[in-house]
């Protein structure tokens, strides 16, 4: 249970908002649930709903609306390549295609070892460092900018190494 394991963190989250505004903690709690469970499970929706006094469907609607919450287990790491106009003008679409080709997947798919899901995403405010992508995992999001296909594949290798060395 989030409430038992992360009591201190949860209290700190709730304390950021005025009394009676607990619902504001829904988004940070969803990130916490994602860290704990890997993705947002129905049980997590109930837990969060109980913590902030709303219905689980109200929490669930946030998962559908915001792109950084996921209700399905995909790859351990989500490699999210910006292919929006400014990045596309600097070759991001070809870059994404080649990264996919090298990993043996199409956009939206996960590598056979279950490690990497490659996705095309909208602008990440890194247009001056295109091609670029972010890696989202349960613990957070990190940027990788000024990329080539080779450097991206090295990032992927690093992630795979981290996953095997790190155990879980």
């Amino acid at each position, binding site marked *: 249970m989030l409430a038992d394991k992360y009591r201190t963190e949860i209290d700190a989250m709730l304390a950021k908002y005025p009394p009676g505004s607990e619902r504001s903690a829904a988004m940070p709690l969803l990130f916490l649930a994602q860290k704990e469970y890997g993705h947002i499970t129905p049980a997590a929706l109930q837990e969060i709903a109980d913590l902030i006094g709303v219905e689980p469907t109200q929490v669930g609607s946030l998962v559908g609306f915001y792109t950084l*919450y996921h209700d399905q287990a995909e790859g351990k790491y989500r490699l999210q390549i910006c292919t*929006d*106009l400014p990045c596309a*003008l600097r070759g991001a679409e070809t870059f994404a295609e080649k990264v996919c080709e090298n990993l043996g997947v199409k956009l939206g798919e996960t590598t056979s070892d279950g490690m990497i899901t490659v996705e095309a995403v909208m*602008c990440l*405010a890194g247009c*001056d460092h295109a091609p670029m992508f972010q890696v989202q995992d349960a613990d957070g999001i990190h940027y990788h900018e000024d990329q080539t296909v080779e450097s991206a594949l090295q990032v992927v290798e690093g992630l795979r190494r981290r996953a095997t060395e790190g155990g879980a």
Partner: protein
Amino acid sequence: MTEYILLRHRDLPGLDRLEVYRKHGGFEALRKTVTSMTPQQVIDLVKASGLRGRGGAGFPTGVKWSFLTPKVFPRYVVANADESEPGTFKDREILERNPFQFLEGVAICAYAAQATLAYVYCRGEFWDLAHDLEGKIGEMRTEGLLGKKLFGTDASLDIHVHLGAGAYICGEETALLESLEGKLGQPRLRPPFPAAEGLYGKPTVINNVETLANLPPILSRGAEWYRTIGTEKSPGPKVFCLSGHIVRPGNYELPLGATFRELIYTHGGGIPAGRRLKAIMPAGASSSILAASDAVLDTPMDYESVAALGSALGSASLILMDETVDMTWVVRKTTEFFTHESCGKCTPCREGTYWMLHLTERLTGADRQPADASLLGSVARGMQGKCLCALGEFSTMPVTTALERFPAEFSGGGEGAA
């Protein structure tokens, strides 16, 4: 420009550290504000400076503050750090490299608004940045720059970071407030405006990161000094973002009113591979597209002059396109973006972006029909003036202007038709 005012970290390495920022006069503007001025005097000074919102709308900041409903408390200040407009990455540099100038601006704004609580709404993708910012806010608390009895006065303030989770629409200020309240980021019907009923139904000021970063220099050096930079109606420095087909993409701090030519050719190094500049989107994906010409290049980049060209300066995020770019592809890309980001609340935007996407896909594909371009224009014009917020309106701008200013690229079709 002889000295950086907003991107001051480029002159002063290590400015993202509190002791370095303080060594260079950091938080003296806040001290002066809190210990020697009334909130009304701060509002009057910011009005006199002519500072206009840097998030895109260009609305006078001091005037926005003066709309706060009198005598209703608590009030809130929200910093809009949801920077998501394609082509825009200026707030990110300020937040990463010159964060304390921004935070000092938040504190000055809160004092003027008589708010004791402020939130920084960061887009979720700024995960690392937002966590760093929380650490820096913690340092401010430790040093007595936040909390109760600021500088020995009765003023108090705390700041919290709130992380979004991937939704462009949350840059729209009422959608941002909804999101901060733990709801779907969908815009509210206005009026009431946030200055009357904002966060938790209380009077709220929402300002962009770059706008807030302008406040410490204005408070320490005065309105008259500020007006020596920029133009009469658009005073001050601006961070311009250059992306797309440009030799040196990046942020450039120049006075408002610098010309497109100066920014693109003197600072940005011109167009790669000796190609010809074909089109400029001055305000990111939300732009009316300008066909490049000498007249356009010699136009000063201030709010009025760019509007007179039939576009808008917006957040001053220039996406540049050379002669190899197909404008039908450009409108497909911008339409993909807006369709994905439409929040679904109002019908004209939800349905309109869907149909524009359908038509731009067909226009750029093998089964292009002769009537597609006129149909696309009619859908776009049908949306204009009917959407709940600016996103819907913005989605039509590149479409209608590309059709109007590059008609040859949209004519023809039917080759693939049966």
